[in-house]
């Protein structure tokens, strides 16, 4: 059974950036047919399925300027940024907050209805709490319906369709319940499938105990790659400080403004870096493994009223089962510190910098293909960045549609993909997807988890090739398992990209995110460049350097000094 649908704009991924992209495409041109395709259900999908407890990169007039923000992110990401894309975020950040506010998304305000912006970082002021931010998805769903976006749930997109000229012609997908094959023809496709969150294996060994929503298996990274798009900064992994075993965020941005902090076993703060970055994770890693470790979230010095407030927010937003986890362990915020550790690796530009290369209009390097959110390479973008880039992608795609004809569909590609995707259903015996996934992700931990070592990563690549062969033996007994089988391929593509990009950049940068034991120094002469990954004409993975665009604002020497100062312990400050 093959279903063929034709639309103007197809948005793949209905979490954060995707709904915004779909709404903005419709608002830009109400004559367009816009479809939002979601692997789960748009009502509760993606990274913010249970809401969000705050913004940590709000650029609000009177508190921060776009120039200040761009300078700070440039320094925080060790210089490897396309400032035009950062400005496109920063200049549109406040308007997006205002628009979300008018839609009903709740930001913290004081008793005058002014945004209650909090100072957490030492230089800029960017934190806007959302103590009642649990209904973001409900608000988005309402807007999707009002704007007459066509919603399809439970479709797993697997490949982007290209026409003879190499421009986008649609996407291929299947229904994870009925198993129906879906061909969706479109003039433009927007990828907003989120992070590659199922890359490393959590320390608990539980496949779905990930930091990111485990639905996000890196689908879009893989689809963009096979469509011939450039990906960038893949070697700048995502690693997060999390509540141990629970593997969810301890939310320093919630507890920080209220007085909580990350501490060592002595209850002392130890993080020098001012911004959530690889540098911060490096310090975390060292403390965790050092004599003063492990590491804890400390709130037990706060007043009862404050702790109750923290519990209400943390146990009601983003990952509300936190409270249940603590209860099971007998942990009480009033008395105990909460043990933390660092996560398995992932790819996520929202937190670090690894993603599909986009310009300031959310265009990828493939005509008609756009990207937004955690999978689009705009460093440290977070939720608000996903919304801003969703808007940019939706508007850019709508404009593109006006001047574009629907591309021809290559029937050979459609048939080949059908065979590839459905093969596990036809096999009579073989490997279960869960076991192949477990082994693959265990290998990711063994060979890619930083600190990175050349020989280890080379062995990893060889083992990944064996997994590629094993995939030809995966069996699935129903469309649900078929979805898991498809996801194993996405994960494998991401693992290979992560290894090759890491091997290519023969220096260390971004703290723990790209710490190479055998190339421990940062080498600015050679490596102040983007590292790009792309599928070559021969079908093999190619890597190359892309020069930095000239900076629009130069980080001032004095600021660099302040930043370096925020990273160096006093006893090592040269006199």
């Amino acid at each position, binding site marked *: 059974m093959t279903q063929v649908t034709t639309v103007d704009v197809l948005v793949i991924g209905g979490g954060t950036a995707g709904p915004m992209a779909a709404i903005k495409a419709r608002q830009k041109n109400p004559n367009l047919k816009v479809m939002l395709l979601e692997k789960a259900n748009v*009502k509760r999908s993606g990274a913010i399925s249970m809401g969000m407890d705050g913004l940590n990169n709000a650029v609000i007039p009177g508190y921060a300027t776009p120039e200040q923000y761009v300078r700070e992110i440039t320094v925080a990401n060790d210089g490897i940024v396309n400032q035009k894309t950062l400005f496109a975020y920063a200049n549109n950040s406040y308007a997006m907050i205002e628009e979300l506010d008018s839609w009903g998304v709740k930001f913290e305000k004081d008793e005058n209805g002014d945004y209650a912006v909090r100072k957490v970082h030492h230089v800029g002021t960017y934190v806007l709490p959302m103590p009642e931010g649990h209904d973001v998805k409900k608000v988005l769903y309402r807007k999707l319906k009002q704007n007459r976006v066509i919603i399809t749930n439970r479709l797993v997109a697997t490949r982007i369709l290209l026409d003879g000229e190499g421009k986008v012609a649609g996407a291929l997908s299947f229904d994870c319940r009925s198993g129906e094959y879906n061909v969706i023809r479109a003039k433009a496709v927007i990828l907003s499938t989120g992070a590659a969150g199922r890359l490393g294996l959590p320390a608990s060994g539980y496949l779905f105990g990930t930091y990111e929503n485990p639905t996000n298996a890196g689908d879009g990274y893989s689809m963009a790659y096979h469509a011939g798009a450039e990906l960038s900064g893949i070697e700048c992994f995502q690693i997060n400080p999390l509540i141990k075993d629970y593997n969810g965020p301890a939310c320093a941005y919630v507890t920080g403004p209220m007085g909580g902090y990350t501490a060592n076993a002595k209850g002392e703060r130890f993080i020098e870096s001012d911004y959530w970055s690889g540098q911060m994770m490096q310090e975390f890693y060292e403390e965790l493994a050092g004599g003063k470790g492990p590491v804890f979230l400390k709130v037990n010095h706060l007043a009862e009223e404050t702790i109750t407030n923290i519990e209400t927010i943390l146990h009601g937003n983003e990952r509300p089962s936190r409270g*249940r986890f603590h209860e099971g362990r007998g942990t009480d915020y009033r008395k105990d510190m909460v043990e933390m550790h660092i996560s398995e690796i992932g790819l996520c530009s929202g937190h670090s910098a690894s993603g599909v290369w986009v310009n300031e209009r959310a265009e990828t390097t493939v005509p008609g293909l756009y990207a937004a959110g955690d999978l689009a390479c705009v460093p440290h973008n977070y939720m608000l960045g996903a919304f801003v880039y969703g808007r940019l992608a939706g508007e850019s795609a709508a404009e593109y549609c006006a001047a574009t004809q629907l591309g021809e569909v290559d029937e050979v590609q459609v048939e080949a993909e059908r065979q590839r995707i459905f093969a596990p259903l036809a096999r009579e015996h073989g490997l279960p997807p869960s076991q192949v996934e477990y082994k693959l992700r265990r290998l990711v931990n063994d060979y890619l988890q930083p600190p990175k070592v050349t020989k280890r990563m080379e062995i990893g690549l060889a083992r990944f090739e064996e997994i590629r062969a094993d995939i030809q033996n995966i069996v699935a007994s129903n469309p649900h398992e078929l979805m898991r089988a498809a996801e194993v391929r996405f994960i494998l593509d991401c693992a290979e990209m992560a290894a090759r990009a890491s091997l290519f950049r023969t220096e260390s940068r971004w703290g723990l995110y790209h710490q190479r034991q055998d190339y421990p120094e940062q080498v600015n002469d050679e490596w102040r460049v983007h590292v790009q990954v792309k599928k070559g004409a021969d079908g093999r993975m190619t890597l190359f350097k892309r020069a930095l665009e000239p900076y629009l604002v130069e980080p001032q020497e004095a600021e660099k000094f302040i930043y370096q100062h925020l990273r160096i312990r006093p006893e090592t400050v040269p006199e």
Partner: protein
Amino acid sequence: MTHTIDFPVKVNLESCIADKGCTVCIDVCPLDVLAIDPATGKATMKYDECWYCLPCEKDCPTQAIRVDIPYLLR
């Protein structure tokens, strides 16, 4: 003798109204692990792939669901 395995998502069969057409929890699960149990007509956890994210529990119109932290993490 048959054993049943203790899954994270627990459905109270008394209050679940899936047999009357409700599919809220099944719809909202990001990992699509819930389904109607043909034997009872009620919701049940079909795949052991829970992210303990709680939309099923929060959105259930009759509060029939309780999600426990998966054993491996407890």
